[in-house]
């Protein structure tokens, strides 16, 4: 069995994020999906899990999560180096940067990646979509679709470890086309919601990475929805 750990779904499922690991588990009988409450020790601390998922949370909970994870920083670093899959979506990517700035406050983050984030809580919420290119180790290019809705942006040199290169839309901030974070099999994106349902080709890639058959649950319908949306975004995004 492959262990997929969904971290803190009680805090990090504000836009249907838990649908992603749940969908993954429906794709394969060989996945053991664990749900970890923020008041308990994560499974990845004591077990060699195959994948860790962390979704989007309210801003105040983001700070709480940083402190919950901080004691396990060394273990997280070790797992990333070992090639364990991490999928981190929405504002959860900010947790892995250096710090989050909120007005005069500076919230130290986990510091695994060299960038910082800035919250603009008094500005209009930023909503946008993206189409981006993700390259697999095998040289295949997967078109990723993303949707962001956020009060913050991240700044730094994202050219070194980007998840994907944005074709249409914005990257980690309005001035970059680099979207997300990637180190070994750590994948982070600002996109929120049911990312794996929205991106069936990426889901197939993750299943293959785990050594599983890459057939998807309702694959035909998932691909139809994906292709329709991709074409619609190409037609309407500027």
């Amino acid at each position, binding site marked *: 069995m492959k262990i997929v750990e969904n971290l803190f779904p009680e805090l990090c499922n504000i836009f249907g994020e838990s649908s992603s690991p749940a969908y993954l588990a429906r794709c394969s009988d060989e996945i053991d999906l664990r749900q970890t409450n923020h008041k308990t020790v994560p499974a990845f601390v004591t077990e060699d899990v195959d994948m860790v998922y962390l979704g989007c949370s309210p801003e105040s909970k983001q700070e709480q999560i940083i402190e919950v994870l901080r004691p396990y920083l060394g273990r997280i670093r070790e797992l990333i180096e070992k090639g364990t899959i991490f999928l981190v979506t929405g504002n959860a990517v900010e947790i892995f940067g250096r710090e989050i700035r909120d007005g005069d406050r500076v919230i130290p983050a986990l510091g695994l990646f060299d960038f910082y984030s800035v919250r603009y809580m008094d500005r209009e919420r930023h909503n946008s*979509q993206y189409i981006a290119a993700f390259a697999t180790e095998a040289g295949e290019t997967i078109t990723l679709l993303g949707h962001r809705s956020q009060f913050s942006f991240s700044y730094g040199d994202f050219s070194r470890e980007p998840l994907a290169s944005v074709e249409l839309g914005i990257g980690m901030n309005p001035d970059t086309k680099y979207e997300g974070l990637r180190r070994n099999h750590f994948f982070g994106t600002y996109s929120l919601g049911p990312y794996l349902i929205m991106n069936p080709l990426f889901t197939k890639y993750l299943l293959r990475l785990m050594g599983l058959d890459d057939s998807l649950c309702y694959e035909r319908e998932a691909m139809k929805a994906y292709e329709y*949306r991709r074409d619609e975004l190409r037609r309407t995004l500027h």
Partner: protein
Amino acid sequence: MIRFYIALWAAKLVDAILTLRGDRQNDRAGYIANRLCPDFMARVTKPKLVVAITGTNGKTTTSTLVCNMLRSKGKKVSFNEWGANINAGYSINLLRCVDIFNRCRVDASVLEADENSTCEGMPMIRPDYMVVTNICKDSLRRNGHPEYIFDRINRAFAALGGRTVAILNANDPISSELARNTGARRVFFGMDDIHADPLENRVKDVAVCPRCGGEIRYHYRHYRHIGDFYCTDCDFATPAMDYRASGVDLDKGTITVAERDGAATYPLMSDTVFYAFNTLSAVALFRELGYSRQEIADFLATQKVPKIRESVVEYDGIRYYAYAAKGQNISAASTVFEHLAKDPSVKELVFSLDEVQDANHPPETLSWLYETDYEFLNVPQIRKIIVGGHMCHAHRLRLLLAGVPEEKIVCVENEADVPQYVDTEGIDRVYVLYEIDFVTKGQQIRDAIVERAREVKGK
């Protein structure tokens, strides 16, 4: 001051022109007033009574009740009944309260207030009362998440201090925390257990205790996160109620509200728990305003559910509904789904929930589909679900993942083709669920379905 008067006169002129053109439900004059004088709302003379009603769900119904009550008592009331509930709407409302010399000529202003904009407008308006119906999950794009909305409304209360009475829902673990330590008098309304037996929602409006992060549990729930709650780790719990619905009979259409010095039974205008809450919040306000229980009961007996939410046509023994479902508003859409699931009639559903404008702009997010309880629709009495529009493939996948059998789902990209897929044989009802901003479109689809049923029968 000169700037204010220029803004007042310019806005008055624009409002008069628009009114002469028959376009009174237009808040452009309010927009102009704010542009010319950014603190217009602070400077304009207010009536003796200003009431703001905000919250995720129920504010239109509640504010309409409040306006109707005041008018029934002979008060002159300024009210934006067409739902202009952000800054321009506040300003047109207040503009119509005064003459060109900024002299107030009405008795009251009733402001339906978008919850996201309260922290900008309310500190200038300084209402006497602010009713908060609830805070629930809403559209991601418009309102982010409930904690963000809580913060926006709470900032308004913090700025208002003791000036404004907060009328709050004791059964809501989110909004019942508003106006704490602000100096405001807090008045709570709530409801005893009515055995509503709500279904469990897949995505929670509030997942953990806002004070300590502990688990929130319920002695009972009315719907979603609204109920008698407590935290397992601290003393956070349903606050004491000033206006407690001790008896609610949805079948008979009555609600009994207990206060410190007595109780009274009032008529309800609908058989849903949501309208019971709307009525309860209005009763709390009316009592605070000094109206007698009898006056309130007499008034409520005259009220009906606004037509915008649902309209029905009956033909050949089948009821055809056009039913507002607020796509992207997770709590509202899930609530409608729950209502349909619990309704025992055999029915077919038509989804027309896409935001029409999104068809030609970057498509809307998928996230609301996975926060909304499509699982509720997997019941035998829902015989078919026809999903129309540019999001139809996404809806189809969502329904499949919710367990709805493949053969029950019909996906139609062109909504004009929807009527031909409705099969009226052996069913009691057809529901066309439409996005609330597109009432006409929803009714047109419904009417086309009825028309086709007539044609089929004629053959």
